[in-house]
């Protein structure tokens, strides 16, 4: 399908109005919106998952679900905030699905499978970043992807995640502890 070039007027339209238009069925608006945000979405997905393949899957999930989700975009929040939230939810859903599979094979509360999975991925990437991100629990990882990765303030990150600022600050301090622990392990 040929990509339709959005007309110049659309270039200067705000995200929010594009989103509203898309929700009302304007195909051009939808395309324009996606074009604007795809790269950023993919980058965020990379920060959340750490693996290209997973990030691509996650981005695809989000893109495919976007039309129906747009119906619930009420235009109160900024579009990017809303999009971040959609992305975090989608990542969460993917993780849960994967976790259920792992649990079904090994029983509840058994982290062995997760660890093995992590080991396999380590072998693939040897990347310091991947190792760190994988070692963080899910909620901390999401927070870090938003604050350090996307550069959101703690306040904005709190809005995206639906938490209080204090909670986000607490989480960041937990992340710091994790990082220190990893650092110490490396030195040892």
């Amino acid at each position, binding site marked *: 399908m040929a990509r339709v070039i959005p007309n110049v007027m659309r270039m200067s339209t705000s995200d929010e109005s594009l989103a509203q238009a898309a929700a009302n069925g304007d195909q051009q608006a939808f395309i324009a919106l996606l074009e604007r945000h795809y790269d950023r979405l993919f980058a965020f997905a*990379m920060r959340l998952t750490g693996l290209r393949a997973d990030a691509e899957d996650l981005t695809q999930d989000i*893109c495919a679900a976007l039309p129906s989700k747009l119906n619930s975009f009420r235009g109160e929040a900024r579009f990017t905030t809303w999009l971040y939230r959609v992305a975090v939810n989608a990542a969460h859903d993917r993780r849960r699905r994967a976790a259920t599979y792992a649990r079904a094979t090994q029983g509840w509360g058994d982290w062995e499978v997760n660890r093995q999975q992590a080991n396999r991925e380590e072998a693939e990437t040897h990347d310091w970043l991947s190792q760190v991100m994988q070692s963080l629990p*899910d909620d901390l990882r999401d927070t*870090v992807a938003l604050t*350090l990765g996307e550069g959101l303030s703690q306040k904005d990150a709190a809005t995206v995640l639906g938490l209080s600022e204090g*909670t986000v600050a607490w989480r960041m301090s937990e992340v710091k502890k994790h990082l220190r622990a990893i650092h110490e392990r490396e030195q040892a």
Partner: protein
Amino acid sequence: MSEEFDRLRAALQNTPKPDANTRDAHLRAALESFDQAQETPDEARQTNMHPQTGAGFLKGISTMFKALTSRAALGMTTGLVTAGLAVILIAPLGQDVMAPPTAIEARSTESEAPADAPILPQPNLEEAIVAIDDRTRAEASQSEAATTTQPSGGVSLQGRAEVGIAGGYATPQANHRSVAPTPKLAFDASDLQVTPHEMGDFAGIAPGRKTTQGTIPQDALNDLESPVEALIIPSDPVNVSEQPNTDTFANEEPNPLKVTAQDPVSTVSIDVDTASYAVVRASLMNGYLPPKDAVRVEEMVNYFPYSYAAPDTAPFSTSVNTFQTPWNAGTQLVHIGLQGQLPALADRPPLNLVFLIDTSGSMQHANKLPLLKQSLRLMLSELRPDDQVAIVTYAGSAGQVLEPTPAAERAKITATLDNLQAGGSTAGQAGLQQAYAVAEGMMDEGDVTRVLLATDGDFNVGLSDPEALETFIADKRDSGTYLSVLGFGRGNLDDATMQALAQNGNGQAAYIDTLSEARKVLVDQLSGALFPIANDVKIQVEFNPATIAEYRLIGYETRALRREGFNNDKVDAGEIGAGHTVTALYEVTPVGSDATLTDPLRYGQAAPDGPTDELGFLRLRYKQPGATKSQLIETPIQTEVSQPGTEARFAAAIAGFGQLLRDDTLLGDWSYADAIALANGAKADDPFGYRAEAITLMRLAESLSQN
């Protein structure tokens, strides 16, 4: 941000570019899905991916019914109904909508249909009605044959009617449905008889009688605060959400046969969770046999109230009797029944209750958050004025939404409940810990304090490590705040976690699939669910090898304890609530019976001498709520075989049913038909119709298992 973060930040900023081909593919896919979403706008809201041919009403129609109550008004809207009907029949994908069971002016619909169906082409409608006709005839005759009974605690809405309309017309309750995955519109167009299921005392409609007009008196509807919401009957649960079904269940291999001479002692934690029965029921009602892992026989047996002898001074009474096993002439069943005390309402301690509600996006389905709200509202009417209620949500808008409020201020509490919306991510650090913090704030000397967690399976409450979660809950329990878990909906159910949390929290895990179940758990059996009378209840049975050659515990596989755990007061076990009954069944093979499955050891010792008038010895330990030391009750089990009473027979029938569902190998030729016969003969009073419902489930299972 500090230097620890710098490295991480730098690494995170540096993400690789997306691959151009993948990007194109994703954008194309998004565009396609956009186009699809535009073609049929209703689909965009749907989450049910199971193709169903014309199975439900549009939500608008039900809202309309909610508003209109008089016959005249209903008469006037039949045209719209018919129009709506035709739309549904044409729309290919079934919607997740509701069918008000019997509040429809069925007869007049038919007469007015031709004239008042303005929008839609007639042929379609007639065609559809003709098609429905044939199916209905078959249905109607089937349903006549089946026993028509229905639990009558409130409006008996059997949750999983795939047949949206059928819920409303000829045979309202899914009970009668022979279970086919394609929902049948049991809408008998030519002869619209509305057979209200025996809502027994409900609306005073006598069982089996067909009303001519089928409207339910308004006062009956008033029973429910928002009747239509309550009538939500979601369709096929297999694909209730966009995601694949991720139900998981906790279970173990069925208990093996044990040889008394080698392993004479059986130790079990006693518990009254009932979730498994509700899950089994939901599965059967929707036309498929439940996954074997979902069947926990003891929970099915314990679902039903039994009338055992009431206790006098102790918190509960114990009754043991032995009788012939229905499915095996050579063995016997040892039936152990515990009956909990039911203190008078006025004597019960004040209750502090925190509702911890999952309001994540996945809860938006009709059988989840709306049903939850309904259920909690029902429960409110059972609380006493000085009981305190608070509400905390753990997703999206996480946090406390209602500060501790006396139950007398019903309006305030229901208003807050009504305002709950599903949406947002799950992950509330605020969630569980906050709920407990609120609960501790309400705690007072002599009160019962409980957190009631209501969820569809998402336990991401901020503590990511499951062991930490368990420990946290156990600690809180020790300091006096208990936890019970209510599960809703399918597709996301985490049964294992539910069980584990409730076990650690000294509470009950129940699965709520319909409003009647909500009523059972939260109204009829509320005292049991909320007020414990005995904690950490364990039984230990030592069988006498001189009289019993082999034995087998039926069910309780997930509640086995080690032998030394019995005397160890630190080992957690189950709770008995006020008024609850608990039943345990052992199948025993007497020495010398031809049903003995194992041969005696060639090189082992001969069976030791023991008193030959005893089958075994029963020991029971329990703790008074708040106590740390347990009390012991001991009683020998005599060898005499008695005639089983109705309660014992019914318990045996359910135990047999559960084992049939698990494909147990030790039942011989015993079949569903035998279970049905046995249960039928042991129905006794059955004031709420639970037993009759069980028999219907057995019939369903019978037909399903023959496919």
